[in-house]
C-alpha cells in the first residue's frame, strides 16, 4: 500500500498474491500426492500392526506407532482423502444450495416471503456453528453422511445471507436490465447473468469456509461424534493420542495435528493470495 503512495517500486517482481497462491497449491498438491502414494507403496496397511505399541519415530516407522502398534506415518496420509473429501463435499453442498436460495430471495419481489425466510436465515446463523452441528448430530446420529448433512443444514444459511445481499445489488445492474429488455427468459437471466456474478462472492467465502469446515470435521471426530474409529482420521487420531501426550508420547498426536494444520494453512494461503489479487484487480 505504501508502495503505491510513494510512487517507487511500481514494477513488482511478482503480481500481488501470486506467491501465496503458488505456495498454497504446492502444499495442498504435495499433501494430496502423498495421500495417494504413501498408503499404496508402504509396507503396512493403516490398520495393521507395524511394530511395538508406542514405538518412537525411527527409520522403520517415520512417525512412530500409536497405542495399538499401527504406523502413524501411513495413517496420517491414509486420512488425507477422507478428511479433504468430506470437507470439500461439506463446503460444496451449502455453497450451491445457499447461493441459489439466497439469489432467489434477493431478486424476489414478495416482501412477506423475503422477510420470513430472511429471519429464518438469521435464526440459523445465530447458532454457534459447532454447537449447532453437534446438536444436529445428536439427533441424526454420527458418521460421514450425517456430518455432511449437519454441516450443510447449518452452513447454507451463511451462503444464503451473502448471496441475498449481493443479488439485490446485481439485480439492479445495467447488464441484467439489458438482458430483460432483450426479452431473455427468466431462467436464462438467472443462471447466465445473475448467479455467476453472485457466486463470485460466495465462492470467495467458500475458500475461507473450507478452513472452518475441515477444522470442524476434525473437531467432531476429536469429540467422538464424527468419523468412526477404525478409519484413520486426523481428529480421531488426535483423540486417541491425547491422554498419552502428558506422559511423554507426543508422536501419535502431534503428527496428525501437523497434517491438519498443513491442509488448513495451504487453503488459507490460496484464499489470502486470491483475495489480494482480486483487490489489486479491483483497484487497477
Amino acid at each position: 500500500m505504501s508502495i503505491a503512495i510513494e510512487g517507487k517500486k511500481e514494477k513488482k517482481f511478482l503480481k500481488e498474491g501470486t506467491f501465496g497462491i503458488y505456495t498454497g497449491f504446492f502444499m495442498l498438491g504435495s499433501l494430496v500426492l502423498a495421500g495417494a502414494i504413501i498408503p499404496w507403496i508402504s509396507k503396512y496397511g493403516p490398520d495393521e500392526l507395524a511394530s511395538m505399541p508406542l514405538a518412537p519415530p525411527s527409520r522403520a516407522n517415520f512417525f512412530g506407532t500409536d497405542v495399538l502398534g499401527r504406523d502413524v506415518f501411513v495413517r496420517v496420509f491414509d486420512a488425507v482423502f477422507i478428511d479433504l473429501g468430506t470437507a470439500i463435499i461439506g463446503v460444496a453442498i451449502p455453497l450451491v444450495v445457499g447461493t441459489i436460495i439466497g439469489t432467489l430471495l434477493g431478486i424476489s419481489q414478495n416482501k412477506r416471503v423475503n422477510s420470513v425466510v430472511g429471519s429464518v436465515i438469521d435464526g440459523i446463523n445465530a447458532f454457534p456453528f459447532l454447537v449447532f452441528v453437534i446438536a444436529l448430530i445428536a439427533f441424526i446420529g454420527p458418521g460421514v453422511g450425517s456430518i455432511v448433512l449437519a454441516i450443510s443444514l447449518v452452513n447454507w444459511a451463511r451462503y444464503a445471507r451473502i448471496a441475498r445481499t449481493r443479488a439485490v445489488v446485481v439485480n439492479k445492474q445495467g447488464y441484467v436490465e439489458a438482458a430483460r429488455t432483450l426479452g431473455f427468459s427468466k431462467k436464462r437471466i438467472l443462471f447466465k447473468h445473475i448467479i455467476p456474478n453472485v457466486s463470485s462472492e460466495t465462492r470467495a467465502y467458500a475458500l475461507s469456509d473450507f478452513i472452518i469446515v475441515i477444522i470442524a470435521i476434525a473437531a467432531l471426530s476429536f469429540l467422538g461424534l464424527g468419523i468412526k474409529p477404525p478409519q484413520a482420521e486426523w481428529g480421531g487420531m488426535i483423540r486417541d493420542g491425547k491422554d498419552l501426550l502428558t506422559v511423554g508420547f507426543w508422536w501419535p498426536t502431534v503428527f496428525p495435528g501437523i497434517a491438519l494444520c498443513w491442509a488448513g494453512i495451504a487453503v488459507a494461503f490460496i484464499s489470502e493470495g486470491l483475495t489480494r489479487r482480486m483487490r489489486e484487480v479491483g483497484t487497477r
Partner: protein
Amino acid sequence: MPHLVPNIKKFPRFLCDTLKRERIPEVTESQKTAASQDAKMEVEKDRNRAALRKTFYGRILRSIIVGFWVMVIAFSLMRLSPGDPVRLALGADVTEEAVEAFRTQLGLDKPFYLQFWDYFLGIFRGDLGYSYFSGRDVTEILGTHLPVTLMIIALSILFAALISLPLALWVATSKSNTVNYLFRALTSISLAIPGFFLALLGLLVFGVYFNIAPAAGYEGAFPGNLRYLWLPALANCGSLVPVLSRVLHSSLVDTLDEEFVETGIIRGVRKSRFYWSYLLRPSLAPTVVLLSYMVGVMIGGTVIMETIFSLPGIGRELITAVDGRDYPVVQSIAMIFGLIVVFFSFIGDLTGYLLDRRVTLS
C-alpha cells in the same frame, strides 16, 4: 497551508465539538447567522436523537424476531431425528405402554404447535424441561454450569484484546513492508490452526514441560479458578486473535489516511490522547461489531476446551448429553447459546454505533 484547514464533514462526531469551538467565532460574524446556526444544530441534534432511537428500537425488534426463530429451530431439532426419540431414549426392550406413557408424560402426543406453545411458555417461567436420564431440571444444569463457560469466553476475549490491540497498532503504524508481510502471513497461518490442537500443544508445553498449568480439575471460587481457566482461554483465543487483529489493522490503516490524524500530529496532541481519541476510537467500531459476532465461534471453541481440560462448563454437559441422547438438554443448550449470540450481536451493533455514528447499521 490550505490542506491543514480541517474539513469538518470528514470528522467523527466526537471531534466536531472540539473543532466547532474553534471555528464558530470565525464563521458567525453577525448575530443573525449565529442564531440560524444554533437552530440548525438543534435540528441536527433532534434528527440524530431520532435516528438513534429508531435504530435502537429497530435492533430490539429484529433481535426479538431472530430470537423467536432460534427457539423455533431449536425446538424443531427433535423432529429431525430419523428414529423415535422416545424409543431411542428408553432403549430397545421396553413395552409399548411404557413408551406411550413416557410420550404422554413429555407431552409428545400433542400436535407440534401446541408442544411448541407449551415449551415457549415454559421458557418464560424458567422451565426448560428435564433431563431424560438424571431427571434434573435443565434450568438447574444451566444455572450451575453456564458461569464457567461464560467466564472462559470472557477471559478469551480479554486475552484476544490484550494481544491483538498492541499488535494491530504496532503493525499499522510501522512503515516496514516486512512487518506488514509477516503479519499477513502469520495471521493466515494461525487462522488455520485448530483450537484443540493448540490446546494440546499448550498442555504439552505449560502443563508437562513448565508444569504451571493443571491438565484437569477445577475449583469454584473466583480468583482460584483462574489457575485452571487461563490455558483454555489462551488456546481458545487463538482463533480470535488473527481475525480481530486483521480487522483492527485494516481500519487503523484507513483511519491513518484521514486528515484529522494529520491534524492531531501537527497540533502535537498528547500521546495517550492521540492513540485513543484520534486513532483507536474512530477505528474500533468494526472490531467491536466483529467481536460480538465472534462470540458464537468462542462458544464453539469453549465446548472443545471444556472437554479437553475437563472443566465443568455447559459445553461438556452438551457433549455428555449428545452421547447419552438426552434430547431436552441438547435442545435447551443449543437454544441458550443461540440466544446468547443474538443478545451479544445486539449489544455489539449498538456499541459500534455509539462509538462511531458514521457506521450505518445493516
